[in-house]
């Protein structure tokens, strides 16, 4: 009986958290329509989440492209299909690896920072102070961050696509002695609009998840430093799990197109 009670409690906890996150999101939409928008804060976060994440996303993408080229060569050379490597690299990077890896990196970098900043503001009563200073925390803190997440991730992923493909090109031409012109021509001829577009759509969704989770967990931080630490952990873990889950759902959706 005790075990059943505990399992039930866990499930109720999960459902109640999902409900709270959905309500939090609806509140954001409501206040975006009803209350003030802060463009300056939005641009600041666009720079923080987007521009400042470029180095980490760039590094991740170039090494992923390089490793992908090497591993593909190992497999494809066994049945003399080396010419398919540019196709595999561009397809894997644009459809899958760039959005997912950029999402996970930004979740660790910016999602954690959002949760920590908002969590600290919560436990030090700065959010209460905002309310009494006639400033809605949804409009001042959450909406600019969520919109910045949605806008900046596709930009990061697009840059990641280019750098990732370049990583594969670098390995193939410099290490595996591919003809550079043929490699680029194969890449260009093979890639389709939907490959890039599906990756960018995924990026929008991941950006939304990362910033929403950061804001939600930060806003629900309790206690002191420990509470802020927990909210940061919850933010990164929940964002990462949701990125992997929604990645499957979106991949299935684009697979049918």
């Amino acid at each position, binding site marked *: 009986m005790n075990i059943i009670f505990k399992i039930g409690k866990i499930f109720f906890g999960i459902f109640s958290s999902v409900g709270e996150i959905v309500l939090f999101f609806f509140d954001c939409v409501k206040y975006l329509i*009803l209350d003030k928008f802060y463009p300056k804060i939005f641009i600041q976060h666009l720079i923080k989440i987007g521009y400042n994440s470029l180095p980490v996303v760039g590094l991740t993408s170039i090494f992923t492209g390089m490793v992908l080229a090497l591993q593909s060569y190992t497999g494809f050379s066994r049945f003399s299909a080396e010419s398919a490597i540019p196709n595999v690299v561009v397809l894997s990077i644009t459809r899958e690896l760039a959005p997912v890896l950029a999402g996970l990196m930004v979740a660790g970098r910016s999602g954690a920072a959002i949760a920590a*900043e908002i969590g*600290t*503001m919560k436990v*030090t*009563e*700065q959010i*209460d*102070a*905002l*309310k*009494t*200073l*006639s*400033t*809605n925390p949804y409009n001042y803190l959450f909406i600019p961050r969520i919109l910045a997440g949605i806008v900046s991730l596709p930009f990061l992923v697009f840059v990641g696509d280019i750098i990732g493909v370049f990583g594969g090109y670098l390995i193939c031409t410099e290490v595996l002695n591919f003809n550079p012109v043929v490699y680029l021509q194969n890449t260009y001829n093979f890639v389709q609009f939907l490959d890039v577009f599906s990756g960018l759509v995924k990026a929008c969704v991941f950006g939304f998840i990362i910033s929403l989770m950061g804001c939600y967990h930060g806003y629900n931080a309790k206690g002191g430093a420990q509470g802020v630490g927990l909210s940061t952990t919850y933010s990164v873990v929940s964002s990462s799990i949701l990125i992997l889950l929604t990645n499957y759902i979106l991949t299935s959706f684009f697979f049918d197109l």
Partner: protein
Amino acid sequence: MRKLKINVNKVSKKFGDKVVLNKLDLKVYESESLAIIGESGSGKSVLTKCIDGLLSFDTGTISFDKIINIKDLSFLKMNKYMSKFGILFQNAALFDSLSIKENLMFANKSENFSDILDEVSLPKSILQEFPSNLSIGVQKRIGLARAILQNPEILILDEPTTGLDPIIGKQINLLIKGLVKKKKITTITVTHDMESVYEFSDYTAFIKKGKISWYGKSKDINKKGNLSLSNFVKGIN
């Protein structure tokens, strides 16, 4: 003739199973300074947060001037209601990513802040500083300046001298006394510091087990026979 400003009527508030406010009644009158004292965890801060709308309460009513029950206010009206309060938070709650000038601009954009900085005895050069570079005593002065800049109808001071050494604490008490008497703002002070009570509070409410156990003039605290209050005051002194 005292004019009623806030009427807290049988307000209850629970956190989980823990009853923090238990059908509590309290009246706050215009232009008077009320101190709320009580042990840690007795519900003092929760009560002020229910009054200023930062926390919702479970049952009872809180009326403010012509507002019958603040619980019935819509979101936008609640925002307007909250702006009637200037609050000095326990840890000042300055926005640490913003400079002091930007912090003060949140309360009032049209000021040049010279007068208010004079009133809280701080130099104008402090406007370019960030909160993390300032001592907690200075942060509280800025917090007080920010609260007053809003031109609030009610000033709420949450533990204004907690965490300060006795000398700075006394300075803050004298500063608040000067401002409260000069501006005649209705003030609610949550405190453990009896100096604050004697220095600038006209009336005092002693809260125990979620109810007001004693209410009267601050100068009568030591006269009236309330054992819990006497023990509390002796314990502190």
